[in-house]
């Protein structure tokens, strides 16, 4: 039986999201599709599946991404969905753990991909936010479109907070890298 759950995760909460999806799988509900704040589950044997998230470097590099996904699928992982650049995999595990990254370097690179994307979105929102507010107050062009600058600025602040949170995670990993591989 299919079950749909709507749930919101902040962009810096991807680890929490992954953990939640794995807890669902442990309870007997495995992810089968994703959408905007929307997760679709199906019944499974409790503990049969593990879920992992990945973040694509470049959404437009279709051939590159297909090659990567094909490579992962060769190793037994199964793509269940894609949302923006987030990609969701599941794998049937018999005792062994399912990980996408096994060394510090690739984990750091994963976080870097996310940080770059969030920073870009945040920067764009900051630019349009300032532009719209300028139009509203200075040019006295009182249109509602220009008032949207507030929304842009708000998104820019949220994105900036996200970059800060994820960068802190990355810094911890990098510090470890000085001693361990």
């Amino acid at each position, binding site marked *: 039986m299919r079950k749909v759950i709507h749930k919101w995760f902040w962009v810096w909460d991807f680890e929490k999201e992954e953990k939640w999806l794995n807890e669902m799988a442990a309870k007997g509900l495995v992810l089968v599709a994703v959408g905007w704040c929307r997760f679709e589950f199906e019944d499974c044997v409790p503990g049969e599946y593990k879920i992992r998230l*990945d973040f694509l470097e470049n959404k437009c590099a279709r*051939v590159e991404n*297909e*090659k*990567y996904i*094909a*490579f*992962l699928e*060769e*190793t*037994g*992982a199964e793509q269940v969905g894609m949302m923006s650049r987030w990609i969701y995999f599941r794998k049937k595990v018999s005792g*062994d*753990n399912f*990980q*996408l*990254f*096994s*060394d510090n*370097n*690739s984990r750091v*690179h*994963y976080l870097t991909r996310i940080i770059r994307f969030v920073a870009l979105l945040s920067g764009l929102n900051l630019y349009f936010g300032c532009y719209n507010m300028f139009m509203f107050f200075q040019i006295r062009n009182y249109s509602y479109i220009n008032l949207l600058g507030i929304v842009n600025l708000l998104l820019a602040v949220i994105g900036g907070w996200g970059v800060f949170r994820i960068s802190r995670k990355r810094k911890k990993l990098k510090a470890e890298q000085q001693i361990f*591989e």
Partner: protein
Amino acid sequence: MANPALTEAVYYILLSLMEPMHGYGIMQNVEQLSNGRVKLAAGTLYGAINTLLEKGWIDAVSGENFSDKGFSRDKGNRKKEYVITEHGKAMLHSEIARLNELIENGNRILKMEVEYEKSDS
């Protein structure tokens, strides 16, 4: 200057590729070689393979009907195999020499310490 240290993953990938192998084969082989200690994750392996290909330490050998230009959606044609190059082998040899130096120094100095302790008591 001597070559910098290889990561454990790269070292074991290169060793595995003394004979042609596809991605999943490498993962299984590395786990077996290290008695289950080193478990390469697929995403990490993919990144390492691409870097090694760029550096020319390994080569892709076209598996059955695999063509790089027209990426086929047909699952049967996907598996790509890799093999070590002469350059890769040279890197392995210099890494093994480096590891030997580490081990010899470690053993020599720790043994000295054991002898000190013995003479103290």
